[in-house]
C-alpha cells in the first residue's frame, strides 16, 4: 500500500479531475523509445524508395537503386535491384574466376586431366563437393556403396565398365538394373542347384553334386543364365550383368551372413526373386557438361578406374 502511495505522489496525472477527485495517471513512453520509433519510420521510407516496393499503375516502383549484370548470352543489362539479378551477376563472376579451370576441363582429355597435378587438385576439391551434394546419398561419402542397394565405386569391380567413357555414359544417362524372377520358371531344387554353382565360382563352400547340376542348368536354355552373365560367368558390362566369379557381392547379401549355408541361401534368394532396383538417375539435365566431366574423373580416381 505504501508503494502505491509513493507512486501516486511521483507519477504525473493528465491534469483533469472527474467527480471532484477522480484523476487519470499519465505515463508517457520513454523518449528513447519514441525517437527509435520515428527513426524506423524514416528507415522504411528510405527503404521504399531504394528497393522495389509500391504497386503503381500496371506494375510497381522498381526502386532508385539499380544493378548491371552480364547474362550468359553475354548481354549487359541494367535492371532495378533485386536478388535474382544479383544472383546472375554473382554466378557469372564466379564462373569467370573458375572459368580457366572449367575451360581446361572441357578442352583436355580425361587422361590429360588425370595426369596434370594442378587439374588433379581442382578435380579433388570440385569433385568432392559435387559428389557429396549429388552422389553420396546413395554411394556414400567415400564411394563405398551399400551392399544390397548401391554399388561400391571405390573398388575395381564395375557393373557397366570403369573406363572414363563408361563412367561418363553412366552419369549422363543413368542406369536401370534388371534381373528376371526365376521362381516361376524353375523349381526350388533347380534354383538351389544354381545357387550352389554360383557359390562354387567364388570359392564359397557348396554341395558339389548340386553345383555340377547347376553348371549344366546355367549353360542350358532352361535357365539361360549365360545369356547375360556370359558362358564363363564373368558377366557382360554392356548390359550391366555382374561378374559372378570374383566373390564381390552387390545384390546378394553374402558378406553380411555367416556360414556357407546362409551365403548360398542369400544367392538363392536373388535368383528366385530377381531384381528390379539398380536404378541410377540421369544427371544430364541437372548438372552441366563440365560438372559431369569433373565427376567422371573424380569417380575414376576413387580407386578403381580402368
Amino acid at each position, binding site marked *: 500500500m505504501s508503494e502505491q502511495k509513493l507512486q501516486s505522489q511521483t507519477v504525473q496525472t*493528465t491534469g*483533469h479531475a472527474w467527480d471532484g477527485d477522480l484523476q487519470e495517471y499519465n505515463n*508517457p513512453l520513454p*523518449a528513447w523509445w*519514441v525517437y527509435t520509433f520515428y527513426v524506423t519510420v524514416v528507415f522504411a521510407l528510405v527503404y521504399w524508395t531504394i528497393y*522495389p516496393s509500391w*504497386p503503381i499503375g*500496371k*506494375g*510497381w516502383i522498381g526502386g532508385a537503386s539499380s544493378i548491371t*549484370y552480364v*547474362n*550468359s*548470352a553475354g548481354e549487359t*543489362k541494367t*535492371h532495378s535491384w*533485386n*536478388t*535474382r*539479378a*544479383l*544472383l*546472375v551477376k*554473382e*554466378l*557469372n563472376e*564466379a564462373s569467370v574466376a573458375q572459368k580457366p579451370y572449367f575451360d581446361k576441363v572441357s578442352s583436355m582429355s580425361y587422361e590429360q586431366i588425370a595426369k596434370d597435378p594442378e587439374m588433379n587438385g581442382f578435380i579433388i576439391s570440385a569433385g568432392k563437393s559435387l559428389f557429396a*551434394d*549429388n552422389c553420396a*546419398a*546413395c554411394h*556414400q561419402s567415400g564411394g563405398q556403396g*551399400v551392399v544390397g*542397394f*548401391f554399388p561400391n565405386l571405390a573398388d575395381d569391380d564395375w557393373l557397366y565398365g570403369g573406363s572414363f567413357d563408361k563412367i561418363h555414359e553412366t552419369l549422363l544417362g543413368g542406369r536401370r538394373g534388371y534381373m528376371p524372377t526365376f521362381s516361376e520358371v524353375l523349381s526350388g531344387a533347380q534354383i538351389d542347384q544354381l545357387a550352389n554353382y554360383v557359390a562354387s565360382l567364388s570359392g564359397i563352400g557348396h554341395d558339389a553334386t548340386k553345383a555340377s547340376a547347376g553348371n549344366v542348368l546355367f549353360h542350358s536354355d532352361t535357365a539361360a543364365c549365360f545369356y547375360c552373365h556370359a558362358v564363363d560367368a564373368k558377366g557382360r558390362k554392356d548390359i550391366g550383368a555382374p561378374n559372378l566369379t570374383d566373390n564381390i557381392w552387390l545384390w546378394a547379401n553374402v558378406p553380411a551372413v555367416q556360414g556357407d549355408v546362409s551365403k548360398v541361401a542369400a544367392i538363392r534368394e536373388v535368383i528366385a526373386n530377381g531384381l*528390379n*532396383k*539398380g*536404378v*541410377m*538417375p*540421369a544427371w544430364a*539435365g*541437372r548438372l552441366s557438361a563440365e560438372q559431369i566431366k569433373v565427376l567422371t574423373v573424380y569417380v575414376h580416381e576413387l580407386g578403381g578406374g580402368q
Partner: protein
Amino acid sequence: MNFNFKHEWIETNIGLMAVLTMLAISVGGLVEIAPLFFIDKTIEKVDGVRPYTPLEQRGRDIYTREGCYLCHSQMIRPFRDEKLRYGHYSLAAESQYDHPFQWGSKRTGPDLARVGAKYSNEWHVQHLIAPRSMVPESVMPNYPWLLSTPLDISDTAARMKALRKVGVPYSLTQAEYDANVVKFGETVARQLHIPDAQKNLLEQANFGNYDGDRSGISELDALIAYLQVLGTMVDFSKYTDDAFVKYR
C-alpha cells in the same frame, strides 16, 4: 517528449479522432490488400507447371500429415550457394497450385524443392524406412509405417473437389476438361479430371510401383510419387539465366 503533444487533443475532438482512425485503417488496408491486385504479375510465365495428379496429391497430403515441412523447406532462394547445391531458385509459378504451399522457413534437413528425379525410388524407400541406413549422419526419424499402411483412396475425388474450390483447375464438367486440354494438353488433362480420380490414381500407382512392392498401394507409393515430381515440371534449359529477373 519535448514538444507538448497531448492525447487529450485527439481524445477530446471526435472529428479529429474519426479522421485519424480512418487514416490508420486505410494504410493497413492498402498495404495488405493492394498487392493482391498485382500478384499475377509476379507469377512467372513458364511452361510445364501443372496441378498434381491424384496419386501425387495424396502423397502431398501424407507429406503434410507427417509434418515433413517442419524440417524440410521447399524454397530455393536466389543465392549462389543454394543454386549450386539445390539447382535453380524456386519460382512463384512452381507453387501456384499448392494449397497450402510448403515453402517453409526451417531447414533441419535439406531443401526438397528439386528433390524430384535426383534419387531412385529404391533409395527413397530405404531412406524413409530407415534414414541412417542410407545417410549415417542423418537425424531424420524412421517412417516404417508408410510402407505397411495401405493408401486410403476412398476420398480422393472429395479432396480434389476441395482444392478445386480454392482455385486448382481440377475439372468436374466436360467444359472444364476441354479447357484443361487446351491449357495442359490431353495427357495431363485426363489426370486432372475428378470423375476419373480413383482410376487414374490406381493406374499411376500400379504402373510406377514406387515402393517396389506389387502387393498393394501403400502410402509410400503416393509419397514417393509426390517427391519424385518436385521441381521437375519446368525445363530450365529453355530459359536464359536472367529470364526471371523482370518479375521482381
